[in-house]
């Protein structure tokens, strides 16, 4: 966009901005959701670019007003300019994607080779009564468009090998291991380490699960899990543990992207929702 285009975009944003009052009384210049694509169309830019210009001006897309308490306008702008790569769009991936899209992580890169089957419907937010046989990547693209048109999603229907992981992670600021089962997790940890980015990883079985943030060079929990049978083979995977783990994953990833820090960096949270125990440990 040339200087005249940028000036026109800024003028349209200024004209459309309205003062919104937060519940605590703070006033914030904000843009209504419907105005952003309209402004983008008039100037010939994407909704992401229009939102970016607004955030640079300190004008907050109104859909992010309730994010400000955690991230502030500066953090929201960082989220908008950040990239997160999600490997797996099942139970963990669908929910993490939903949270990151609503938080406003501006670029979401995702991959899952699979199509939905009926047994996904107990926990996977992208699985509905209409999605049997539909690729998870396609459902993710449709969902993100509906939820937040200001962010950009590239979702591939592809089973990633090491090279595929390297390529997905090349442009990402953080990686999320949302795989189901033990296979592929160690490869992804190696890919994240070689990309030099943090890996937010989680797994669940029944009422138990873990979430860890593997900083480059730190130990990866999946390397301890082996490749044999796993607890979910008999305990299954249900929403309470999946939602818990995915919520914590998204929170840690967003904190890394928006604030440059997170609580589980180099550590691992192990939870048991049956006994309500929460342990944070350091791996040697």
């Amino acid at each position, binding site marked *: 966009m040339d200087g005249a285009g940028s000036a026109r975009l800024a003028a349209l944003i200024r004209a459309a901005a309205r003062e919104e009052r937060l519940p605590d009384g703070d006033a914030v210049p904000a843009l209504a959701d419907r105005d952003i694509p309209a402004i983008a169309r008039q100037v010939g830019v994407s909704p992401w670019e229009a939102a970016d210009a607004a955030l640079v001006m300190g004008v907050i897309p109104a859909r992010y007003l309730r994010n400000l308490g955690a991230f502030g306008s500066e953090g929201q702008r960082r989220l908008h300019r950040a990239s997160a790569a999600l490997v797996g769009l099942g139970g963990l991936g669908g929910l993490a994607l939903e949270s990151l899209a609503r938080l406003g992580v501006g670029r979401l890169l995702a991959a899952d080779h699979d199509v939905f089957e009926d047994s996904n419907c107990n926990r996977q937010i992208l699985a509905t009564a209409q999605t049997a046989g539909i690729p998870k990547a396609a459902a993710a693209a449709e969902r993100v468009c509906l939820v937040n048109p200001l962010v950009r999603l590239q979702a591939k229907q592809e089973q990633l090998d090491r090279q595929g992981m390297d390529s997905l992670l090349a442009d990402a600021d953080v990686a999320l291991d*949302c795989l189901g089962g033990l296979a592929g997790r160690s490869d992804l940890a190696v890919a994240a380490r070689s990309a030099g980015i943090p890996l937010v990883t989680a797994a669940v079985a029944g009422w*138990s699960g873990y979430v860890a943030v593997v900083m480059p060079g730190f130990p990866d929990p999946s390397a301890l899990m082996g490749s044999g049978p*796993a*607890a979910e083979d008999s305990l299954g995977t249900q929403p309470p543990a*999946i939602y818990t783990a995915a919520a914590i994953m998204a929170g840690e990833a967003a904190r890394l992207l928006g604030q440059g820090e997170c609580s589980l960096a180099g550590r691992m949270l192990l939870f048991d929702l049956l006994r309500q125990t929460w*342990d944070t440990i350091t791996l040697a």
Partner: protein
Amino acid sequence: MNIEVRCFATLGKFAPTDGALALPEGTDVAGAMAALGVPPDEVKIIFVNGKAVGPQTALRDGDRLGLFPAVGGG
């Protein structure tokens, strides 16, 4: 000595009822696992007081021992 034990997921069935286990002084993690009847090959992560450790780690009165199996569901 008495320790607190947390057994996760499929290992939950080996957990003492109130989470407490009485052991002879000087027992290590492997000894505690044997006392609980936990098959060692089913334990992938052992932690004591918030730190991952190996089975030969000596336990002390009041320690919190956690045993976590292979978990990979998503």
